[in-house]
């Protein structure tokens, strides 16, 4: 199971341990995880709401993982992404990669993050007491993608 899209909160530690346990005997000496946490930058965020495109989301994430596995010799890769409503300091999503060498595990995790930031169908909306606004895509995220098109 390489992709999971869910409404419910998840336990980063339990997911990381389960991912490592799946690598038993795989000679994957390097495990990298990335976890995204809801930030309250403007000091007034009540709820982060994430909308997604059921069906396409799972396909897009699986396709991104396929690409990563073609580019790097990975033992395994995993993406978990939530949708729905969540609060500051809650985990939004995580990726995990397993490889023989750390360079591959790090690069593949960064690649997965760059792609899913801008190419997986999720949209964030920030709700505060006063207002609600869709988060705008950042130019840096688009730029980050370009480094992989070598």
């Amino acid at each position, binding site marked *: 199971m390489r992709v999971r899209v869910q409404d419910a909160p998840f336990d980063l530690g339990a997911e990381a341990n389960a991912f490592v346990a799946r690598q038993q005997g795989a000679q994957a000496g390097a495990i990298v995880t990335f976890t*995204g946490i809801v930030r309250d930058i403007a000091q007034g965020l009540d709820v982060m709401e*994430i*909308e997604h*495109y059921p*069906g*396409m989301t799972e*396909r*897009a994430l699986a396709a991104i993982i396929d690409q990563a596995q073609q580019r790097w010799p990975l033992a395994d890769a995993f993406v978990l*992404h939530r949708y729905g409503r969540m609060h500051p300091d809650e985990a*939004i*999503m995580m990726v995990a990669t397993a490889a023989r060498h750390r360079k591959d595990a790090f690069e593949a995790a960064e690649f997965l*993050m760059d792609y*899913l*930031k*801008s*190419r*997986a*169908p*999720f*949209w*964030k*909306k920030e709700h505060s007491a006063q207002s609600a606004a*869709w*988060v*705008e*895509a950042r130019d840096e995220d688009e730029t980050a993608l370009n480094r992989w098109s070598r």
Partner: protein
Amino acid sequence: MIDVLYFAWVRERIGTPRETVETQAETVQALVDELRAREPRYAAAFQDLSALRVAVDQELTDFTAPLAGAREVAFFPPMTGG
């Protein structure tokens, strides 16, 4: 007959997440032109196509994409996952 889906502020502007559209449009662009002509809310949502992304049958594509055989078209703003 094609299912047209809207997400995020596109959905809010058009006022529905999903509708079935009777169309002979051969490309996404032609479908957009038909929708724009319908009602102001569509014209508003599709005002600036550079601010929009499109998927045909759940694959990201662009506005020149053909619609022959397509069952589902989705319009949405740039994604903000992660």
